[in-house]
């Protein structure tokens, strides 16, 4: 499984969301609230074995923004 697919799967699993996760933004669905945000961050950290900075956690406000942020941790999320 590619890093991008893994990243997509994390969003689906964190929010139990079956739609197009690549378009998701913070608070756009009920499950992506402050608690959901922490669950999402925990899943990303576990999946990619990283520990994110607080500024990055606060900045991760959309699926796309997360792709950009993870590149700082040397995790390439190339879309297939």
């Amino acid at each position, binding site marked *: 499984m590619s890093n991008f697919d893994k990243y997509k799967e994390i969003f689906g699993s964190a929010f139990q969301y079956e739609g197009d996760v690549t378009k998701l*933004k913070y608070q756009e669905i009920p499950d992506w609230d402050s*608690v959901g945000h*922490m*669950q999402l*961050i925990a899943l990303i950290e576990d999946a990619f074995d990283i520990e994110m900075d*607080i500024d990055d*956690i606060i*900045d*991760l*406000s959309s699926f796309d923004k997360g792709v950009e942020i993870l590149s700082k941790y040397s995790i390439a999320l190339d879309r297939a």
Partner: protein
Amino acid sequence: MKNILLPMDIKGIKQHQQNRYPLLFVDQITNLIPGESATGVKNFSYNEWFFPAHFEDDPNVPGFIQMETLVQVFIMTFLSIDEFKGEKTNFVKADKVVFKRKIIPGEKLVVEAKLDSFRRGVAIGSAVGRVSDEEACSASFVIAVPSYLERFKPKQKL
């Protein structure tokens, strides 16, 4: 971290969590490793407010109160960390909830709780309650400290 004297009595418990009568269901904390585990005791006497109603002819502890007892011991695993002492907590998720036996007036529920993960105000773990060494109830939990989550949420909706 300051030393915590054990057993912790009701005054100590009330300093660490904000649950109060008629919804405080831990009498004593007998073992505690902050950030790891807690063991607590709840004695159910017939004077409990719910026994006359649940049920008049067969008094026993309602399931939601057993759950609340489990979680109130569980939250002591992280509310015993100085930074979180006395914070309010919210249920996020309860899973694998099992009730194995009735608990009746005069019985003592001993709860052992384990914290598996505690990151940025989200606690994940489980608790098992026993009466006379016989398993009575168990569950796993995700609990949040809302005041702490505020620090990490994205600042605004895009």
